[in-house]
């Protein structure tokens, strides 16, 4: 088993299938591996009528990935990481919601499963590098002596927002072969390579939540664990402290949310913040959502070393956010920064990632407090 073998993380979708096919066509030694992360049958009450479709870790996805591996003629294995996934992704996801934050499980999965457990397994079985179907670009910068992360050529598919936790050591052993490609070209290549999933729809939402209903998932998960979700029902209050109604639990709400408040008002109302300690959900006007500064913790610097001085950057505060100009101030705690936006930003949401860009370059990122 030569060390230059590449382990491809195959989800059964078109992107990772094409990665395996491209590398194979290039003459690389390729081994395909699918991570079994979550057993969808665990919470059967969440599976929509007619069965869940196209969800990660369904038997269909393993079947698709195996089929692609068979067509490409590469060895293929299913790695069972269900224990680690539950421990490091699902449980924190549920706990974060109950703590009034809005987590990003995909980033946790990248940090703790894909670019940790998987990479470790790849190395263990003799594959020195791994490749995934992420839309992002990794390159080595000789002058800084660092691995850099850049946005993908297909800006609509760019996934760097979810990759801010990658360390230099992880980037050194990771290939993102699709980073320079347009999605349409990937599908075209899939057809040319004879990959049967060429037309499979892109995955959406969070893979282990079968119907996109996070609150229902969290409740079902805690029920299964035999733990009643801590009583999170409470009062809906306005920004000036007026109680205007009741709510069914803080985990139903995220900052900036407009739907499901059940309060009639002359103008649109939004969730401004959730306060798990007092079980209050604060609602207010659109203008109340604007923030000029925020703090981020657990900061990881990628393309530059941790700065000593303030850094100018464009900061993205959620996946669909248009990165906004800001200055990042280091704090006494090296893992924390203060971000001051040039213009106030709407719905800064605790638990989401703050990713710092300089043009195409990902400087680093952290978790919004």
């Amino acid at each position: 088993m030569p060390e230059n073998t590449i382990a491809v993380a195959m989800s059964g979708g078109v992107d990772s299938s094409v990665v395996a096919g491209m590398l194979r066509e290039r003459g690389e030694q390729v081994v395909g591996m699918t991570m079994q992360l979550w057993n969808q049958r665990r919470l059967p009450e969440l599976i929509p009528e007619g069965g869940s479709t196209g969800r990660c870790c369904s038997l269909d996805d393993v079947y698709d990935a195996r089929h692609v591996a068979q067509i490409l003629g590469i060895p293929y294995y299913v790695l069972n990481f269900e224990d680690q996934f539950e421990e490091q992704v699902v449980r924190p996801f549920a706990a974060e919601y109950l703590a009034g934050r809005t987590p990003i499980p995909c980033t946790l999965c990248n940090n703790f499963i894909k670019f940790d457990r998987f990479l470790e397994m790849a190395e263990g079985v003799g594959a020195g590098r791994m490749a995934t179907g992420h839309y992002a670009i990794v390159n080595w910068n000789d002058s800084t002596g660092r691995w850099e992360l850049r946005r993908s050529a297909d800006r609509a598919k760019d996934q760097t927002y979810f990759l801010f936790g990658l360390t230099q050591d992880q980037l050194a052993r990771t290939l993102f072969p699709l980073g320079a490609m347009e999605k349409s070209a990937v599908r075209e290549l899939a057809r040319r390579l004879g990959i049967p999933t060429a037309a499979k729809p892109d995955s959406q939402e969070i893979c282990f939540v079968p119907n996109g209903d996070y609150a229902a998932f969290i409740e079902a998960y805690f029920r299964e664990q035999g733990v009643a979700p801590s009583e999170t029902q409470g009062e809906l209050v306005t920004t000036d402290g007026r109680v205007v109604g009741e709510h069914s639990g803080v985990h139903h709400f995220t900052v900036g949310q407009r739907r499901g408040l059940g309060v009639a008002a002359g103008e649109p109302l939004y969730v401004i913040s959730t306060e798990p300690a007092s079980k209050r959900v604060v609602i207010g006007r659109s203008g109340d959502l604007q923030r000029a500064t925020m703090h981020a913790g657990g900061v990881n610097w990628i393309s530059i070393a941790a700065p000593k001085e303030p850094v100018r950057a464009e900061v993205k505060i959620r996946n669909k956010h248009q990165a906004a100009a800001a200055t990042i101030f280091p704090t006494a705690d090296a893992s924390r920064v203060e971000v001051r936006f040039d213009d106030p930003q709407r719905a800064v949401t605790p638990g989401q990632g703050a990713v710092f860009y300089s043009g195409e370059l990902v400087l680093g990122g952290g978790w919004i407090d």
Partner: protein
Amino acid sequence: MQRYYFDHNATTPVSPEVLQAMLPALTDAFGNPSSIHHYGQTARAKLDHARRQIAALLNCSDNEIVFTSGGTESDNLAILGTGGHVITTSIEHPAVLAAADLLPVTKVAVDASGVADPGAIRRAIRPDTRLISVMHVNNELGTIQPVEEIGRIAREAGVVFHSDGIQAAGKLPIDVRAMNADLYSISGHKIYAPKGTAALFIRKGLELHPQMHGGSHESRLRAGTQNVAGAVALGAAAQWITEHAAAGWPDLAALRDRLEQGILARVGDAHVNALGSPRTPNVTNIRFDGLDSEALLIALDLRGFAVSSGSACSSGKQDPSPVLLAIGLTRAQAKSSIRFSLGRSNDAAQVDALIEAVAESVAHLRKLAPAYA
């Protein structure tokens, strides 16, 4: 890449003599053995010949052999066909355990030796006990169970005795009379015949409820047109074993010992599970402390060596081997164990290559510790 097969307890290749015997049953003797005409009679003759070959292997009469589609079906027919309260052990194959779970069942615990205690089985007998089902040889450890003594206990108690002999056939002599067995399962693909062919010995006079409903094939015990070619293959495989038993068993024990000693000498913190217990000569189950057997299995496969972590029937599941947990290994210990099972194609040079690959792969994986701890 040179490839080596060390997973004969999972399945075996069809041997040349078996293939040669079965091919005519797919072509010339294609008839339905229940048909009255010449074609039917030709097929029937082959089927009955196979029955005699299997009876000779088990030391029973040919009219005590029923053909089935696999070891799982044989075990299911034996257990569900008998019914009542069942006593079995915690280290049985899922084909036995899952069938027994459909009935009132007592699962007798087995200690680290991997060998069931006949006394414990005797103590589990209740007035409504109808069946004792204990495997002849454990599939993961290779441990030989005291079936003669258990058979005696069953006979004294007036209880039916079934033994799953799927991992015993071809590895040690079988005598269903000596072990007082009423029911005994064997399967083709563990003995160099194809998958999908198996048999159940049913002692003459024992009444079983059929589990397949249809025609009156196989003495009304197993409806469905017989897989004649499969039965012929099973018969040929049985005959090969009978002939070679007379001439002395192939010396797999020497190879197994070479493998075991080689690994233990080269790899630290490695332990043979159920060492010291009577075992079939072809199996060793080795625990590599602090290591993930899934990673070792894949690493070895990518180097060309096929081995197994637990029973192949359980692969893809997160849970470690239920057999290893049942004999008292911790979860971590069970998840760090690998089964090596030898067969006719293995030789000393292959074993030496395997030892080398295991030593290198374990060293590499342990270098990445403590993640594997």
